[in-house]
């Protein structure tokens, strides 16, 4: 399971201090997520595309990821314009009504969701997960939460391999899933074994850590340097976010 596909690179966004990127991504998500106008949606998408180009991400993989985001959007394009209205004459007491305002709403949501997904790719996926954890710890996120994150991410890969071995063993014994109780029981036991192995591994990990003197302190090994590049980035992103918030507040009479 290779997850950090975008983390390697030497673009200006890859080299930035992850703390600056985290702060900017959070502010951008907040402003764009809460806006309701089409103008904001288009502007946000423009900014997001620019960020992806600056990060020099492989556009094919970016498009594939956006595809997953837009599956839910496809549902909204169908469901938002269709509205349930009470109709005493029909059998269910309800009927469908076509509402064109729903199309506009679906459009705004699609623009915003794609824009935010692109910005998260350009800003957050360009750091390694390890760097992001360190950035969180430096930003004074509670140490217990950061430690849970570290254990979670470290053993995710190990347990995924375990899962792979277990399903391979099931296939080797001729298991074929279907709509029957046997399938449900087999999958339940698969999940159960996976959880037992997680639990046992957690105990061994904890014992090994005790041997090495673990007392609950997380020693941060990586320290980031905040230079003029980070200042410049924060100035530019604050200007962009200020412009976007102005668009978000602007009345939407002309959209």
């Amino acid at each position, binding site marked *: 399971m290779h*997850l*950090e596909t975008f983390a390697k690179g030497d673009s200006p966004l890859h080299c930035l201090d992850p703390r600056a990127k985290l702060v900017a*991504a959070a502010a951008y*998500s*907040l402003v*764009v*997520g*809460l806006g309701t106008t089409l103008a904001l949606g288009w502007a946000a998408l423009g900014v997001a595309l620019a960020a992806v180009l600056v990060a020099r991400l492989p556009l094919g993989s970016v498009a594939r*990821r956006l595809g*997953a985001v837009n599956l*839910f959007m496809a549902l909204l394009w169908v469901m*938002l314009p*269709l*509205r*349930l209205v009470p109709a005493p004459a029909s059998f269910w007491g309800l009927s469908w009504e076509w509402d064109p305002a729903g199309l506009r*709403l679906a459009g705004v*949501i699609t623009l915003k*969701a794609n824009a*935010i*997904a692109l910005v*998260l790719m350009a800003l*957050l*996926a360009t750091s390694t*997960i390890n760097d*992001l954890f360190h950035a969180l710890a430096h930003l004074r996120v509670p140490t*217990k*939460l950061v*430690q*849970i*994150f570290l*254990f*979670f*991410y*470290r*053993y*995710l890969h190990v347990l*995924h391999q375990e*899962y792979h071995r277990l399903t391979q063993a099931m296939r080797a014994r001729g298991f074929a899933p279907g709509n029957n109780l046997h*399938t*449900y029981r087999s*999958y*339940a*036991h698969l*999940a*159960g074994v*996976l*959880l*037992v*192995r*997680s*639990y046992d*591994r*957690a*105990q061994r990990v*904890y*014992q090994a*850590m*005790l041997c090495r003197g673990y*007392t*609950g302190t997380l020693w941060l090994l990586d320290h980031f340097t905040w230079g003029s590049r980070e200042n410049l980035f924060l100035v530019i992103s604050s200007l962009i976010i200020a412009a976007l918030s102005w668009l978000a507040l602007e009345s939407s009479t002309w959209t």
Partner: protein
Amino acid sequence: MHISEGVLSAPVLASGAAVAAAGLAVGLKKLDYDRLPQVGILAAGFFVASLVHVPIGPTKAHLVLNGLLGLLLGWAAFPAIFVGLALQAVLFQYGGLTTLGVNTTSMALPAVVVYLLFSRLAQGQGRLAWVAGFGAGFLGILFSALMVSGALAASGEAFSSVARLVIVAHVPIMFVEGILTAVIVAFLGRVRPAMLGGASPGVSKEAGR
């Protein structure tokens, strides 16, 4: 059941974030340092278990297991679910940063409710454990679907039909999760009864510290 960015209204996002923050605070406060590896690694186990796709009629659905997660982790369900959702937001852009609060709440709050309702019963023998397991799996999904649906409905009149669809679509999943969780609880009761101890699975006791 992730709600994407850009759908929900500001008051809904804010209340979701507030509940998630409170749940995280309680979960972390109740958690001793000696259980951090356990919560992190079990969270990883649940994350991987959710890759299992179970056939339901002509389609497939992935496991959620938030009811079982509640039984095993209690209030630590909040941090455990939060880390999984945060990772997906950062790595795959499923969900997002502003929806993290609502999505965490809609999965973790049902887990804690299930823990409070069934954790005693799940430690029982035979039929009791089956009942607790089925109830935990079934209600975990039911409550989650209700919360997701409520978040959508509260965000605007336009979402009322999507909100209904969410509940209808989850009815078969409730039964499947109920059956699977019952089998898993019975299995854990046989091989690792300590895991069903809820708030204090005896790591330190068994480790012989």
